[in-house]
């Protein structure tokens, strides 16, 4: 465990040591790392997938993916909160000298909550549309990297967040299958109201 933590810290320090090399790159990272950019983009991708497909069968498949991804965000959030009750990891800037490009958050570093949420959305979409889901995973990778680069997460926090996001979707998919036809009926009701 000690060795894993040491390797994690070393990878973090290596990535964070690049800060200051290029001011333009740092500025771009500050945009990406923001609490607003990637979460807003991912959320509107879900909105776009809900409405934007001419083929009805494909649209319904997307809508099920959006339902899964959207609901998984809540489950992932709960899983992170439960994890934080049992384990609290201090942020990198609390214990080591880092170059910080973001405000210093006070919550637990492990698991990375924003990554858990964005991975949950990406996985939900990936279940319905591999191409768009893969693009979202690339977005998550960039987001996770930028959070480590900016000095707010260790790499393992990002990996932990990603695992929680994927687990939340898998768990919810099992629940959705068990409670069928409830999701289908919900979708039909929304369709009746011309929202789906």
């Amino acid at each position: 465990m000690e060795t894993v933590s040491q390797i994690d810290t070393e990878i973090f320090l290596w990535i964070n040591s690049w800060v200051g090399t290029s001011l333009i790159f740092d500025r771009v990272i500050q945009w990406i790392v923001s609490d607003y950019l990637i979460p807003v983009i991912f959320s509107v991708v879900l909105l776009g997938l809900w409405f934007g497909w001419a083929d009805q069968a494909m649209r319904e498949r997307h809508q099920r993916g959006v339902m899964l991804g959207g609901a998984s965000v809540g489950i992932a959030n709960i899983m992170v909160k439960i994890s934080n009750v049992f384990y609290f990891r201090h942020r990198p800037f609390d214990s080591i000298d880092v170059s910080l490009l973001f405000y210093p958050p006070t919550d637990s570093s492990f698991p990375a909550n924003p990554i858990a949420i964005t991975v949950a959305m990406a996985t939900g979409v990936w279940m319905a549309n591999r191409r768009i889901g893969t693009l979202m995973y690339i977005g998550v990778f960039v987001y996770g990297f930028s959070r480590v680069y900016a000095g707010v997460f260790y790499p393992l926090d990002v990996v932990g967040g990603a695992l929680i996001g994927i687990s939340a979707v898998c768990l919810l998919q099992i629940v959705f299958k068990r409670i069928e036809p409830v999701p289908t009926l919900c979708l039909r009701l929304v369709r009746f109201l011309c929202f789906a």
Partner: protein
Amino acid sequence: MTLGQEYLILVFLVCCGVLQVSASFGGLKGLLFIGNRRFSAALGIVMILGALMWFFWSGGRNLPDTGGGIAGASQFAYFVLGGFLALLFTFVVTSLTNFNRAPSGDTTDGLPSLKETTFGQALSHNLGIAWKLYRRLTRKYSSG
């Protein structure tokens, strides 16, 4: 203007833009502000990029919730509110501007009905069917 209000405007504009782009790709003419699908998609892209540039260009967005930033729960609430307002705005505006669009015979199949009708026409048609069904069922099973 507070960051929360600016965020709400960002979400509203981006959601309106995404609705225009997705409706034009999905062929949902009843949800378009402009009749032409290409112009609507272009308008949507301009709204999305314009809103993002406006929000992020001024900088200073990386703030803790204790120092003027938005807490996670509030961020979620702002997003839901902004998205809902964008949907409402799109549905109301397109129902009014495309009012002369003739309703098709079958509008009970959800979003595909918006290819030919407006949201207002489709919804009122479906609610009318539901009301008739309810009246028929209550009449059938009433003791009087």
